[in-house]
């Protein structure tokens, strides 16, 4: 149905945003790309008193590298992530994740800040930033704070954002020669939300996994860190056996609810399949054939 009646305000700076939030009151919502928020208006899943459009705030834009940190402005669109050379070089998982998100027209509007703030349990980017060990930069009238991605997500559509606070940027540790990062998912149709997905970030030094972070999405209430499976890989040489061990450890990690797609057993099966798909690429060619 048509959207409900609401106010609209556009702000051009963070100072203007704080003033607009004060003026609009607690029922106001922030509008970035709007590719989820505006759809929820049609279903009356949201009914904001006012939408405050932040898309012209220059401080929230741009991708840059300083030292060992890739800084991605909150307004960076999925289409930008997919083609930005700095993202491709320093956080290849995000460049790989972007084309998995919806369709080209949506990727031209949707932003990384918006996706992380929404915290959809089946979304690619929340799981990706947790796997990459990223830090979210949050700002409010009171100032700035930094929250590790792993602490930011607190469950179904729930985050550490306080009222009157927004994400301004995502800071990702840059990939090194030992980094192996990838994202894989299973969908019924291209562009659908994943039935199950895996963001995998490993450090592999001389064939030995020195750290592993396997983060699933679409199988629970949010970005689910598979601690047992990650631990099963750490300190081991990457091989068909260690991949099997990680798969076996998954049962203790995941407690998938039944959803539209199927029950817990199907989700567990898909999670095992995803581990194999993600990690087999990092095996020696001779082992891959086996």
């Amino acid at each position: 149905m048509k959207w409900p009646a609401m106010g609209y305000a556009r702000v051009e700076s963070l100072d203007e945003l704080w003033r607009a939030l004060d003026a609009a009151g607690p029922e106001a919502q922030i509008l970035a790309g709007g590719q989820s928020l505006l759809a929820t208006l049609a279903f009356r899943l949201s009914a904001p008193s006012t939408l405050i459009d932040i898309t012209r705030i220059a401080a929230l834009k741009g991708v840059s590298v300083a030292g060992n940190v890739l800084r991605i402005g909150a307004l960076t669109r999925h289409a930008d992530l997919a083609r930005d050379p700095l993202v491709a070089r320093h956080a290849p998982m995000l460049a790989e994740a972007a084309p998995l998100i919806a369709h080209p027209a949506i990727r031209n509007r949707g932003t990384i800040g918006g996706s992380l703030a929404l915290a959809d349990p089946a979304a690619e980017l929340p799981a990706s930033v947790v796997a990459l060990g990223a830090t979210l930069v949050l700002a409010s009238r009171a100032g700035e704070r930094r929250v590790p991605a792993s602490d930011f997500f607190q469950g179904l559509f729930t985050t550490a954002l306080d009222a009157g606070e927004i994400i301004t940027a995502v800071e990702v540790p840059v990939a090194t020669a030992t980094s192996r990062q990838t994202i894989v998912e299973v969908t019924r149709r291209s562009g659908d939300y994943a039935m199950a997905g895996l963001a995998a970030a490993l450090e592999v030094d001389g064939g030995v996994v020195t750290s592993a972070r396997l983060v699933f999405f679409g199988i629970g209430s949010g970005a689910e860190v598979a601690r047992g499976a990650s631990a099963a890989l750490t300190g081991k040489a990457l091989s068909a056996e260690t991949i099997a061990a990680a798969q076996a450890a998954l049962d203790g990690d995941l407690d998938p609810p039944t959803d539209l797609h199927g029950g817990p057993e199907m989700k567990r099966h898909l999670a095992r399949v995803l581990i194999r798909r993600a990690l087999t690429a990092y095996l020696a060619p001779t082992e891959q054939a086996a």
Partner: protein
Amino acid sequence: MTTRIDVTLTVNGERVSRSVDTRLHLVDFLRSELGLAGAHTGCEHGVCGACTVRLDGEPVRGCLVMAASLDGAVVETIEGLSDSGEIRDLQEAFVARNACQCGYCTPGMLVTAADILTASPQATREEIREHISGNYCRCTGYQAIVDAVEDVLKARAAKREAA
């Protein structure tokens, strides 16, 4: 609460100024305020792609853009793309390949297909399918649409080589 917003934007090369209701999305704005009925209103929640238009040079879902947010924007619709001749070959290929049946998806499909021609001139059939995956067609089964886009990609590539 301000529920009407003044916007001035460029639509198909013409400057237009309107006071728009905040409830209005871009497609309804085009259709009801400007009489440009080429872009279709379909699902109105970003799934079907019938409302795809070009905003600041890129395809977007017209139903997921607030008309109130369009001050300074540049919008191109199927009417503008038709008049400019930019996609004449694509439109002819759609006819030749019978890539439109009921026609409901066609304006959005053409805007998306035009994006393939500029953004991925080397696209394979698989990439064409991927690129139009957000535009639903309930008649053709997509085969004819992919054929039409592929024909134009090949024809344009041959033209570039000859030049």
